[in-house]
């Protein structure tokens, strides 16, 4: 079971990296959503995947039955899912607003913050100080 999940994590990670490397903001956002699911799956498998007993403590006992499943990774995942959900919602709005204002989804064409090419030729003269 662990081997299957390990391969699945690998395939998902590769797909999300592929998506994130595309020159398209929408695909990038989808890639980020996928990569956060991959991380969740990884945490899930870190708790062990054998068909174990539920982590319940029988009456009169102080510890769960030996070999019980570890419930903590699922609690961690739950937190991570909630966080990635809200971040994903934010990202969708950000991508949409960016598309509206900059009228492109190609990150290479977004040069509002770093308008480098136009200035590149003139840097040298100013860097030398006032002549």
């Amino acid at each position, binding site marked *: 079971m662990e081997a299957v999940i390990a391969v699945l994590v690998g395939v998902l990670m590769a797909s999300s990296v592929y998506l994130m490397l595309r020159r398209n903001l929408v695909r990038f956002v989808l890639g980020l959503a996928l990569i*956060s699911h991959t991380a969740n799956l990884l945490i899930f498998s870190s708790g062990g995947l054998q068909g174990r007993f539920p982590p319940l403590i029988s009456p009169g006992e102080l510890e769960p039955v030996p070999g019980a499943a570890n419930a903590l990774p699922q609690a*961690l995942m739950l937190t991570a899912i909630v966080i990635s959900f809200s971040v994903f919602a934010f990202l969708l709005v950000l991508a949409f607003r960016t598309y509206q204002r900059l009228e492109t989804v190609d*990150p290479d064409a977004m040069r*509002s913050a*770093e308008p480098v090419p136009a200035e590149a030729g003139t*840097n040298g003269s100013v860097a030398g100080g006032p002549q």
Partner: protein
Amino acid sequence: MSWLLAGAIVLPLACGVLGLSLRPQRAMQQWVSLVAGIGHLGIATALLVTVWTDGILVVQVGGWPAPFGITLVADHFSSAMVLITAIMGVATIVYALCDIDQRSLVKDFHPPLQALIGAVCGAFLTGDIFNLYVWFEVMLIASLALLISGGRKAQLDGAVRYAALSLVATTLLLSGIGLLYGMTGTLNMADLHLRVQQVENQGLLSVVAILFIVAFGIKAAVFPLFFWLPASYHTPKVAVSAIFAGLLTKVGVYSMIRVFTLIFTHDVGYTHGILLWTAGLTMVTGVLGAASHNELRRILSFHIISQIGYMVLGLALFTPLALVGAVFYILHHIIVKANLFFVAGAAERLSGSSDLKTLGGVYREQPLLAALFFVPAFSLAGLPPLSGFWAKLLVIKASLASQQYWIAAVALAVGLLTMYSMTKIWVNGFWKARPASTAKPAALSRLNRALLLGPIICLAAITLAIGLWPGPLYDLAERAGHELMAPSNYVEAVLGPSETAALGAGAEVVE
């Protein structure tokens, strides 16, 4: 005293929530934020004093004993960072009273700012590695809200880059935490210190360590993971840029130092060797990037990257003196760097430009501002007797003591190039006559001028005080550095003496 620890996190977060409910009344929002900021400064001061007199302070949240519950820990390093955060918070709030006034298009500033301060303090004070991840996410959302508020094109463009790389970083951090939990079965950092020694597959541990280096490296903006920083830091309002420049990357460095002194010390030659190369390349690329730009805030953004190199260098050398240097460097740098952004913003408001080609005449028209620029700028370059000189001296002395002569040479050369960059700003922006094409902006009212220059004067005074009397800060950094190098005190404070002895004995048997 446990309320001090919780208060440092809860007060700013509560104020952020209150600020959101006061959204229509922007004047009220400002005053609530200012009062909370001053209160936070009080709590942070009391926290540092308590830690200084009584030693490491620990709170088990909800009464669950470590390692099962979430632990909050304040040692000398983290409480000093909380105090610096609180100082930066007050300075930013005061500066923003003029920079982001009630007519500004930036409608939401104070609530996310308070959330950011709360999250940063949370990251400094937590003793639980998953909790650290959660604080990173809170910090990310708060900083994104600050970054895009106003909605200019450049801001959205910068925010896309910032969000993209930061989210990859937090995902890698989450994966690293998952793998680490799978190997050790614990999330408490003190407990992790003991348990990683019992992990059989030390090679796998190094892989996880690399995941942490990449994740914190993106957050700290080290080479080659820094591209989000110069793309985004110059786009929002100056008050926002300044608090980002002061705090955010330093949280990454802080976490890196915490994790690589407390948890991943199994193969120092490998992990810290990578960090050493990273530190050298970060210093050089940052300062060269700065030399190629002409816009004030973009120059300063690249200098953040180059200075991060010095801090990582302190960690990479991994000697007591080097860690003392790293702690000293971080504390001095936060104040200096945020102050430089404040000065850049004030120069833009008072002289009408932030580009070296169109800026000019600041020295003649605003002599006070020019003098105030001099203090942080040449402290950054490491000129005695300013604070940066002592910070650089400690780090370079540590690298000489470790016989890493090449990195000491790099650090010195980068200091010289920083000086070149600051001189370029001085000559082009402050000294030369105002270009005829640049119109002089309308004069600010006396109150607004005081609100802009007040925080700059206070931070410059702190820089000067550290430079002239480095003793107290050095003592603090020394205590923090020695605590970091000998984590047994930290572990004992969190887990209690008996637990530590039992597990320590277990570790010896396994070895």
